[in-house]
């Protein structure tokens, strides 16, 4: 029964995507979009319940849901729903402004659901080969979405995206091959499930550390490219800024987290094979680099969506730092940060999309007085920005604090100092940028029509989760995170 749920979770969005190709009506497409996303979230919740009650569930060695997968699945489901709701009103405006062609609407929705289906597979995959195939599948579907408008910038971003991440994750495939080879060597012969994470992690202590080290380096560079870790992040600000807004929200909120999950899976194997120092140290290095590299670009940025893209690089770096500091505290903080950043970044991308639509530009020097033009979305922009910058009482403050404490507990004072310095600088830069957008007086040419209900509803869903997680972490989520932490630590 439960294993059927694992098959349904990717099948529902996949089938919905295929069905969308036959539909031409905007309302019907939007209804399918919201309905299928709600189904994914409901399936995620059902799987989460089952896993919480009776432990990990496996389906034929292809899929497997443990607490770690459940955590990421819930994030993907939640973002899919919020983005689908927001898309209803957004799409109406895009059509009205002539940004989207009516005859290509069904392709857009179908690709989005293909994208969601492949993300669900990456999260649920037990077989590391399936994980890789689905990860490349996310690139193929989302690259077409990044270049969907067909303008020069969009196509350039799409090309950089597909070429850099495809070569990047082919490194990940090579790492996967090496880990598989090590597992077979340790076992003496090819065995059923030799490529499955669950069986490799179980014999991790017997794997040859030399080959696992090389494999893990390839995996971190590979999946790290997809996750946007510096110095292999150069495609990310382009793709995340040129994609249509709902797609940007999914790319930054959900997809890079799926790639992080891939790294986390191999991190567990590497910890078992070569001890915590090697993989943790490597993640720490990539984390510090990401935080440091992102900072100057955030400060000097004028394009709002590029700003958010670089900001994602910083936050992926913070997650890597948490994993690198290690221990229960660091890992717990990193996992919590995955959820917090996913929710908040999707929210801010949706708001930014609304602002860009109203002002007809992405330049933050031109966007002024947004709070007066769109009071609700403007308030959410301020809240989201303060949360992203790491201000209490919002959720990101909590996870950053946990990661900092883990760094101090691990005695990594230099890393903690660099991290703190960058966070303070980024705080100043971000609040300055957003303050200029929110306050002041808008020019007369700005689109002042009343705020559409559906985008606001999607944003409110995300912002309520953001505020809730900042005030207190629900006991059920706390238990889920604690169990997922144990899985990561092996």
């Amino acid at each position, binding site marked *: 029964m439960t294993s059927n749920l694992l098959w349904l979770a990717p099948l529902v969005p996949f089938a919905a995507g295929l069905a969308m190709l036959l539909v031409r009506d905007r309302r019907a497409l939007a209804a399918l979009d919201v309905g299928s996303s709600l189904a994914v979230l409901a399936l995620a919740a059902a799987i989460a319940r089952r896993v919480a009650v009776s432990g990990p569930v496996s389906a034929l060695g292809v899929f497997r849901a443990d607490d770690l997968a459940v955590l990421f699945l819930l994030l993907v489901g939640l973002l899919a729903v919020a983005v689908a709701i927001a898309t209803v009103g957004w799409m109406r405006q895009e059509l009205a402004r002539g940004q989207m062609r009516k005859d290509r609407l069904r392709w857009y929705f179908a690709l989005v659901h293909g994208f969601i289906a492949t993300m669900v597979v990456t999260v649920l995959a037990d077989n590391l*080969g399936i994980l890789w195939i689905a990860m490349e599948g996310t690139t193929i579907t989302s690259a077409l979405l990044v270049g969907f408008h067909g303008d020069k910038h969009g196509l350039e971003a799409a*090309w950089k995206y597909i070429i850099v991440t495809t070569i990047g994750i082919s490194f990940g495939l090579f790492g996967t091959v090496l880990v598989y*080879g090590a597992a077979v060597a340790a076992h003496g012969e090819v065995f059923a499930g030799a490529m499955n994470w669950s069986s490799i992690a179980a014999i991790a202590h017997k794997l040859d550390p030399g080959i696992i080290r090389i494999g893990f380096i390839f995996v971190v560079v590979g999946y790290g490219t997809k996750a946007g870790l510096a110095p292999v992040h150069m495609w990310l600000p382009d793709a995340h800024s040129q994609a249509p807004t709902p797609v940007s929200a999914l790319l930054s909120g959900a997809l890079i987290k799926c790639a992080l999950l891939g790294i986390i899976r191999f991190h567990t194997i590497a910890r078992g094979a070569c001890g915590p120092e090697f993989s943790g140290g490597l993640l720490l290095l990539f984390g510090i680099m990401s935080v440091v590299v992102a900072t100057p670009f955030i400060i000097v940025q004028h394009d709002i969506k590029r700003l958010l893209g670089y900001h994602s690089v910083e936050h992926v770096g913070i997650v890597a730092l948490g994993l690198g500091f290690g221990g229960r505290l660091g890992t717990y903080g990193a996992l919590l940060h995955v959820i917090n950043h996913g929710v908040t970044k999707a929210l801010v991308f949706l708001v930014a999309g609304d602002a860009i639509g109203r002002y007809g530009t992405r330049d933050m020097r031109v966007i002024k007085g947004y709070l007066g033009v769109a009071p609700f979305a403007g308030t959410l922009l301020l809240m989201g920005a303060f949360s992203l910058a790491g201000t209490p009482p919002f959720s990101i403050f909590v996870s950053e604090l946990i990661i900092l404490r883990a760094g101090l507990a691990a005695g990594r004072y230099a890393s903690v100092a660099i991290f703190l310095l960058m966070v303070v600088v980024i705080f100043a830069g971000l609040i300055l940028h957003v303050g200029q957008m929110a306050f002041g007086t808008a020019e007369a040419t700005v689109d002042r029509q009343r705020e559409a209900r559906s985008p606001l509803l999607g944003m409110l869903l995300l912002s309520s989760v953001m505020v809730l997680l900042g005030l207190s972490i629900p006991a059920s989520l706390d238990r889920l995170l604690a169990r997922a932490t144990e899985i990561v630590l092996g």
Partner: protein
Amino acid sequence: MTVELATRLIDVLGALLLFTMLVILASGQLFRAIYAVALQAVFLGIAGAVLAAATGNPDLWVIAGITIVVKAFVLPWLLIRVVRTVQISREIEPAIPMTLTLIAASGIVVLAFHLNASLGPVRQTITGNALPVGVTLILIGVLVMASRRKALVQMVGLFASENGIFFTAMAISQGMPLIIEIGVILDVVLGALVMGILVLRVRSSVDTDIADLESLKG
């Protein structure tokens, strides 16, 4: 086929893969690079057949067949079609001087074989020099992609890189499970199609090579 013979054949094929890789890296002509990557895929397919005969694993015969059909014929045909449709100039202008890239390539070869020598008992499970050859192909593929501002050449570099992964994957413990290999090849083909679409769309709107666009910065 004895294990010694298989090992020797794999090493010979590995050398041929390296040679075709250097031809791709040094070629100043688009078609030559495409033919070289097709030839490389033929050698890869033969390597699959050798390993299939040596290990008696029937899956490897299938993989060898698919490799030759897809990577030696379908993908090069797709590339040539795109070249003919968009009529881009067929000269390859390197962004980095050729001498420098060749020096970097020889550095990669040395590094990969040095890395292999440092490995422990796990080397027993990999036939011949498949691991260092695989690492070398991957890294030189990246070098090709980084040093050329031409979309089609970047795609050739990508395919050559993937050939390296397939070579190592075949030689490790009788190859990956068949269904996974098929899934990976499917991804490669779909990815190539999407890249082809992007190249054509840019050609039809702004008349430049997509890899030559650089308006997104900072």
